[in-house]
């Protein structure tokens, strides 16, 4: 009893001592020295002379070309002038996805491309060509009768001009503005008509701004679609993209998407490199059919130094992007969901309305429905072997489940798959509730049937499906959909790559990746655990028995 009292008393005194010590520490221990009255001297500024203007390495100054020193009235006239020298350019363009908006996936035999797929952003091009073709590398695509063989309809300057004044506004069938116009309508913002001669004379290598004019604005606006492509990449700081940083490597898009005869390699339809087929990945300078727009093209399959050799053991299962793009949308928020089913709410006066979220992003638009946005998005991770299956207009769907607009194939056992980061874009969109197929809405146009003019789904869907020459029962509903986008841009500095513990932990990044044993993740085998604990218990019993035996024999003499 006395000894218990002593222990209790000791504990009490010890606790009080610790508390007193902590309080003393909190109040006095870290007191800084008296503040120095003199402020630290400011660093001397560096020389402020303006850097010399970088000389172009081009052998041609297009402003000196007579053919470009004319007053162009329309953009196709500019193209005609371009073609007087670049005789094969239009023919090359007309063989590309940028022109045809078609892609035949030979693995799945699915006809893809913007012309055919229905996504869960703006949904479909059919019946909305005048609007969507603002991002077509051509002029005049208004409807399904478009002449894809006309060379002067190819838009050269959208990819090559450098004035920054050339804008293809939605609704003009791919033409630039020829006179100043207000866009978006009723916004008070004026888009100036470009000086086409100046635009033509400014041409050069395709810059990030050229590609970004469309690819940063996919899905109907800046940062909407991809998550790893937005206007912050026009002039990205180091934290955002180590390859494109202006003060650093300053890569243009073409540095990776190395173009030949206007064919731009590397797209979401063929985004991967096969590292497990015994064939080395494409390396720069090598002529073959593999994808040069991959990390491995420059870095190889074993990119880490010898002291980090363990990381090289991961490259046959983990895509580079998984560790080196820890989050996407790090420059600004990206759209994460789009619910078309709530579109059409109007003000008491019958006018369309918009609402913003706390961050100032569009959260609701009568024309489009509800949106959500997020920045610094933690990707979802999946097994991906490069094969993608699409839910097309004619594909039967199950409306009781979330419809995957595109399904990424892959498994840990197929010998081809890597764990990839993806943006999963979620939404609700119209479907034919009788035939259980996706529908094409007619959204844009002043024709009385378009959704944005009358907010009437019946008319819009009937017109869209008629334009697509596809059957429609006349009954529609809204189905939940998901569309995945492989993340491959916005590579972070190497110090910001995922650490081991970010994956090898119980609630780590790869917690939902199935089919593999990952140390540290809490992957457990019940029988293996039983066996381990049994051995541990037996060892403990052995130690105790042995120790007791020793004590017993020692005391016995």
């Amino acid at each position: 009893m006395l000894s218990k009292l002593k222990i209790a008393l000791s504990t009490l005194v010890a606790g009080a001592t610790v508390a007193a010590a902590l309080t003393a520490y909190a109040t006095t221990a870290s007191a800084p020295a008296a503040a120095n009255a003199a402020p630290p001297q400011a660093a001397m500024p560096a020389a402020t002379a303006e850097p010399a203007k970088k000389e172009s390495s081009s052998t041609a100054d297009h402003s000196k070309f007579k053919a470009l020193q004319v007053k162009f009235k329309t953009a196709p006239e500019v193209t005609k002038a371009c073609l007087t020298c670049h005789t094969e350019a239009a023919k090359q363009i007309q063989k590309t996805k940028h022109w045809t908006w078609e892609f035949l996936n030979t693995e799945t035999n699915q006809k893809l491309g913007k012309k055919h797929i229905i996504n869960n952003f703006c949904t479909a091009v059919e019946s909305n060509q005048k609007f969507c073709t603002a991002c077509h590398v051509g002029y005049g695509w208004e409807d399904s009768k478009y002449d894809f063989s006309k060379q002067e309809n190819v838009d050269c300057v959208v990819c090559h001009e450098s004035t920054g004044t050339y804008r293809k506004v939605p609704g003009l069938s791919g033409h630039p503005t020829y006179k100043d116009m207000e866009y978006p309508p009723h916004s008070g913002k004026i888009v100036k008509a470009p000086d086409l001669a100046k635009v033509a004379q400014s041409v050069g290598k395709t810059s990030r701004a050229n590609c970004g004019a469309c690819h940063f604005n996919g899905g109907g606006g800046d940062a909407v679609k991809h998550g790893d492509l937005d206007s912050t990449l026009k002039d990205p700081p180091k934290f955002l993209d180590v390859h494109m940083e202006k003060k650093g490597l300053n890569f243009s898009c073409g540095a990776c998407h190395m173009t030949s005869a206007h064919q731009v390699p590397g797209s979401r339809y063929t985004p991967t490199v096969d590292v497990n087929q015994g064939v080395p990945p494409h390396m720069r300078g090598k002529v073959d059919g593999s994808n040069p727009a991959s990390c491995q093209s420059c870095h190889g399959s074993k990119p880490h130094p010898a002291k980090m050799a363990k990381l090289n053991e991961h490259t046959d299962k983990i895509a580079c992007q998984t560790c080196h793009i820890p989050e996407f949308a790090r420059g600004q928020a990206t759209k994460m969901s789009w619910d078309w089913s709530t579109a059409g709410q109007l003000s008491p006066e019958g006018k369309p309305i918009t609402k913003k979220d706390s961050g100032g992003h569009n959260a609701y638009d009568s024309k489009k429905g509800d949106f959500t946005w997020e920045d610094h998005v933690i990707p979802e991770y999946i097994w991906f072997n490069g094969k993608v299956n699409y839910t097309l207009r004619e594909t039967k769907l199950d409306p009781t489940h979330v419809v995957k607009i595109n399904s990424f194939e892959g498994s840990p056992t197929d010998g081809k798959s890597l764990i990839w980061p993806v943006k999963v874009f979620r939404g609700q969109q119209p479907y034919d509730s009788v035939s259980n197929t996706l529908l094409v809405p007619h959204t844009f146009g002043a024709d009385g049937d378009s959704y944005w003019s009358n907010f009437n789904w019946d008319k819009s869907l009937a017109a869209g499906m008629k334009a697509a020459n596809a059957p429609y029962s006349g009954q529609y509903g809204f189905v939940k959909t998901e569309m995945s986008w492989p993340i491959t841009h916005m590579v972070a500095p190497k110090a910001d790559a995922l650490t081991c513990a970010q994956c090898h932990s119980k609630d780590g990044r790869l917690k939902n990746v199935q089919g593999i044993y990952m140390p540290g993740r809490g992957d457990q085998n019940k029988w293996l655990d039983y066996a381990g604990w049994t051995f541990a218990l037996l060892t403990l019993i052995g130690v105790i028995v042995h120790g007791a035996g020793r004590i017993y024999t020692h005391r016995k003499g």
Partner: protein
Amino acid sequence: MLKIISGFVAALVLAGVLAYSFMSSLMFWEIPSPFGVEETAARIQQNIQNVGNGWTLSGLRNPAKAVEADGSNTLPVMMVEACSTKYSGPILKDDKVRYLSILMPCKISIYKKNDGKTYIGGMNAGLMGKFFGPMVGEVMGHVAEDQAKFVIFDASKPAPALIRGTPGAAGGAAAGGGGGC
């Protein structure tokens, strides 16, 4: 005697270990938020403006931006700063505890973690105050009561806009005036 000393030392070590283990969770709190970082910050700002007791917003800081400016990445962090002269006044008027001005303005941190979720973190003002005498303890107790109200959200109400500027006190706490301490 030896038993008493060894018992005392053992208890000292035990108490130290316990204090070390639980100190952070006692001094600071962290709760998950059902909203994103910006919306959480905006709702907290709104709550601060509505709670009364002289609370005003002092600023909104984004420490992640400094990391980015240095060429590196970190997940989003926002710090909502608020102050009430009703509570700061008595402390600032007392020479003995005026150094506690380093705890002003009151900060609530909103951040995203690697699980993709948003969390709210703050200082346990009630407990902290008890270290510094009865007057501070009482004041900080009231602060803690109000702090608890800052993080009660009504999801049925629309998300307010985030107030990015520093209302009434440009430069956060530095400028003084009506918006801060």
